[in-house]
């Protein structure tokens, strides 16, 4: 009889998995604190309830609702982190990080380097993000490429509830500032989540589907769209390999190159607008390393280069979906 034991899992939506990760981290380490708008239970436990119950369990000293002051939130997190805490700063919407970019990019990202490693900034900035909820242009952005461009930051985007728990745990206990991007469209989709400690290391991409004809590289909720598109492609005899990057910085380039070296064709899919998106970086990396073995150019599929629109048909036209992924993959294979 096999004695191997699968970790016990429970079905949870991503937002609950995030809540579990923070709760367990706070229980494990008294240095973990939470700052953000409306995060305490008296203010509702977060706009998406991601921090619900935490202030009741861990106290309002450690789970602190703040004024609507993004610079003050990130700044306080940075100072407390340098002084030995592990703050989790919630920026309610990814778009609002624009208000705090000086603290994020000039301070969190650079203070280790500028101090010659005398001071570390182990903060995690959590942001809800992404389109699909008809929130319009200022509550729907995916801005990960901005942050990947800044040396010193790590950027993490989970595609499923289990990874959300495991990757967030890694971010909280990482020695460097991490931006953890939570797509709101994924918040309420359930998936199996390991009970108890669950850590997914940063910088390890996952192969979500094996295939031989092309590699589709993606991250976040678009990984699931890529998997559904791959099922459709398989009906036409096209076998796609689907990679989930999980973190963009650090990037598991080895895994990407190993896969593309095998399939000789690559498509990068993300929700963010295509122009200067992470797909551009990835496309360049793949091309620089594998130019001679590629069967065709690396393709990119992202959102259209417009602000996120409000009206449903416009928002749907903005986002890359399953049909667009299928079309793009076919073009890559037929090249």
């Amino acid at each position, binding site marked *: 009889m096999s004695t191997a034991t699968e970790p016990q899992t429970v079905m949870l939506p991503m937002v609950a998995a995030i809540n579990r990760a923070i709760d367990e981290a706070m229980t494990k380490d008294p240095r973990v*604190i939470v700052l953000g708008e409306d995060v305490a239970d008296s203010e509702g436990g977060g706009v998406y309830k991601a921090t619900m119950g935490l202030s009741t369990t861990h106290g309002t*000293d*450690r789970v*602190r609702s*703040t*004024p609507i*002051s993004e*610079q*003050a939130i*990130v*700044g*306080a*997190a*940075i*100072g*407390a*982190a*340098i*002084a*030995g*805490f592990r*703050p989790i700063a919630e920026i309610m919407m990814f778009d609002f990080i624009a208000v705090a970019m*000086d*603290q994020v990019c*000039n*301070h969190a990202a650079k*203070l*280790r*380097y*500028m*101090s*010659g*490693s*005398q*001071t*570390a900034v182990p903060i995690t900035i959590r942001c809800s993000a992404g389109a699909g909820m008809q929130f319009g242009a200022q509550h729907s952005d995916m801005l990960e490429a901005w942050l990947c461009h800044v*040396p*010193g930051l*790590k950027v993490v985007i989970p595609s499923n509830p289990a990874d959300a728990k495991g990757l967030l745990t890694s971010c909280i206990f*990482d*020695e*460097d500032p991490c931006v953890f991007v939570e797509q709101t469209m994924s918040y309420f989709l359930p998936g199996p989540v390991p009970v108890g400690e669950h850590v997914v290391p940063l*910088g390890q991409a996952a192969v979500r589907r094996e295939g031989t004809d092309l590699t589709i590289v993606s991250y976040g909720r678009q990984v699931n769209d890529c998997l559904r598109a791959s099922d459709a492609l398989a009906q036409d005899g096209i076998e796609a390999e689907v990679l989930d990057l999980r973190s963009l*910085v*650090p990037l598991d*380039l*080895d895994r990407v190159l190993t896969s593309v070296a095998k399939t000789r064709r690559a498509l990068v899919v993300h929700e963010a607008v295509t122009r200067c998106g992470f797909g551009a970086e990835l496309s360049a990396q793949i091309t620089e390393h594998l130019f001679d073995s590629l069967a065709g150019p690396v393709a990119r599929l992202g959102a259209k280069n417009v602000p996120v629109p409000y009206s449903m048909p416009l928002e749907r036209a903005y986002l890359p979906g399953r049909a667009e992924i299928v079309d793009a993959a076919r073009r890559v294979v037929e090249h």
Partner: protein
Amino acid sequence: MTPDRVALLGMFETATKIKQCDERFRLLLASGQIVCTYYSPRGQEIIPSAFSVLLRPDDYMVTTYRGLHDHIGKGVDLRGLWAEFLGKRSGTCKGKGGPMHVTDPTSGLMVTTGIVGSGLPIANGFGLAAKLAGTDQVTVVNFGDGASNIGAFHEALNLAAVWKLPVIFMCQNNRYAEHTKLADGTSVERIAMRAAAYGIPGVTVDGNDPIAMYEAAATAVRRARSGEGPTLLEGITYRFFGHIMGDDMKYQPAEERQAAMDADPVPAFRVWLLAEGVAEEVDLAEIEQRCDAAIDDAVAYALAAELPSPDELEDDVYAENLA
């Protein structure tokens, strides 16, 4: 809280060290022996001198690109400080920070930022850490009058007030925001008036008067240490050598600058100490010689120190270098 003799002589020693460091630095710059951007704090010696005798090494300080006086006041080792200014490997930050980004946790000098006003939100984090850890450490964040016009100032004062953080917001009002006169860019006559908007004490003092500065700083430190919350303190001062070394200072009327230099706070402090019988000439001369010797040592050390190797470029970005 009047300073006693020990405090007064401690302040004089700090002020002297700052003045002499600045003079030596400008001399070496003018002679071409060193090359770097430099924001002289000359004329603003008294404010950090007061904190130098009021703070403990485990109290936190945050300052700005015009920070040499605050670095010295908080007790950053002169050798490391000079080596950092000269970009040497043995500088406080391995030559990666430079004058605008000195960090020295040993002395409690935690952050030096080159972004106007950005230190204030971070100072709140140090205050929060002390509060959560249950210590009585205080945090002093220094900034200029110009910083009171940036959003971070207002976000930070509000949050510090709401959370009653042990932070002293020290506005060193040298009357110019880069090249702009205070009245041309600031809606209030006194920066400390802005404290009223956040329901915290706002105090304006002559930042060049050692007694007044000491007393105001001591009150703010005591308030923070006892858990009563933040203070916005404004010390009126003047910078003698413009925004950045080499600027033409045409925006500063020559007679205004001359009057400020005639009232140079460091020699004035010296005269006062002698007149009041706090110290004899021999005591002050000994302090000055001690500072001079320490600076000689630091300059010799920094000039002889090795530059970093290009191999070190990609270290210190992350805790572990990324592939």
